[in-house]
């Protein structure tokens, strides 16, 4: 897999972003929106919601650019974290809002239907990434499941262990193995 090379160096890009340069934003969007949108679809599994969250995430990114520290981590990782946290916060908030009201229980079922529809409705994957998708599919299902649970559902290791009925140690080991496997898959 070959990552699209930025036409500017990352430090120049960050400098431009800190001045809220429109061109820099356009480059940032074109470079990362598909990945961020894909992650959001994985998390919420509903297009309209994913679009709203992408918008929310980019607004947060734009407003908090000054908080980004290149020494602490990569830009894309930072973007991913903001996007993921935005989505998980939104899911937790809507869950918290639905929980105390029993009448909403029926609606939750409707939402489940939408989610199932959404899963069937998932748009075709970008052809550029088909090869990559194959790579992802090479991940062992039990490892992929754990990454998805922790990374996309926001489960803590303890919650994942409880949910999968596994010992906490096994969960930790599998997650480590899954990430090591990912590392190797992309860089072999």
């Amino acid at each position: 897999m070959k990552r699209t090379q930025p036409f500017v160096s990352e430090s120049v890009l960050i400098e431009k972003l800190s001045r809220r340069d429109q061109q820099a934003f356009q480059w940032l969007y074109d470079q990362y929106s598909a990945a961020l949108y894909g992650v959001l679809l994985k998390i919420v599994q509903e297009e309209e919601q994913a679009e709203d969250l992408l918008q929310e995430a980019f607004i947060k990114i734009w407003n908090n650019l000054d908080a980004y520290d290149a020494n602490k981590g990569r830009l894309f990782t930072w973007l991913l974290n903001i996007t993921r946290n935005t989505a998980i916060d939104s899911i937790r908030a809507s869950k918290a809002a639905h929980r105390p009201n029993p009448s909403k229980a029926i609606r939750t079922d409707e939402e489940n239907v939408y989610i199932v529809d959404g899963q069937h409705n998932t748009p075709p994957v970008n052809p550029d990434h088909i090869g990559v998708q194959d790579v992802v599919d090479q991940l062992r299902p039990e490892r992929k499941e754990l990454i998805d649970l922790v990374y996309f559902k926001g489960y803590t290791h303890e919650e994942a262990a409880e949910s999968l009925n596994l010992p906490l140690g096994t969960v930790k080991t599998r997650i480590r193995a899954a990430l090591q496997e990912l590392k190797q898959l992309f860089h072999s």
Partner: protein
Amino acid sequence: MNVAEYIASGTLEAYILGAASDQERREVECLSSIYPEIKQELDQLALALEDYAMALSVEPPVALREQIMSQLTFGVTQKTTAADEEEPETKVLPMPDTRPIYNFTWIAAASVGLLLLAFSFFLITRLRDNQQALASLRSTNAALQQDINALKTQQSSSSQVMALLRQPGTQIIQLKGNEKAPDGNLAVYWNQQTGQLALDISSLPALPSSQQYQLWTLKGGKPFDAGVFDPITGVHHLHPIQQGTVDAFAITIEQRGGSPTPHLESLIAMTPTKAS
């Protein structure tokens, strides 16, 4: 510290997946800044996750790009758009700021104006009231002054009469009108020793302005002029007459200024004095 062991512990993976506790997060951030091996492992894990995310890429709807951009504020850095964008921005930004202030200024100015107007009206009303009160006080004052003057005059004439009456030898001679002046009624205060004389008119018929009443004294059958007077109710002080006895007092109607001798046909009253 065993770095390899720490790397193998799974904490870095938890950190990268956002599943680390606050305590673990601080720990990882601190250690990665100290140990290059940890930093490197962390970067590789981040890269792996980035690649995973890239692998999940789905192109968002094309319209979303414009929609998101419309929500963001961009700095003015583009050479081409700098001039174009600065104009509307400087125009648009002050508008919401100044307009409410503009309105507020007008409202405040109008309020102050109205307040001043109301206050002026209040002052004018007060002034008018005060002027009216002052005018009525003045007229009351003048009326009182007149009353006081009248009373003073009355008082002084009364005291003169009183002084005359207190003198020993003063006589009070009542004169009643005859058939020519049936309502005529007056008194003469006369002191034989001093000759002082005063009239106290209770009522006398009015006269044309060309005529006056004239008082006469009769002595030894002869009339003597004792002064003229108008038929005004009240006390009239006349000039003292010659000392000595008087047989009677008489009143006639004469031309204004009096006559040297009485016209007896116009006699209206006569009373003899008490025997001295």
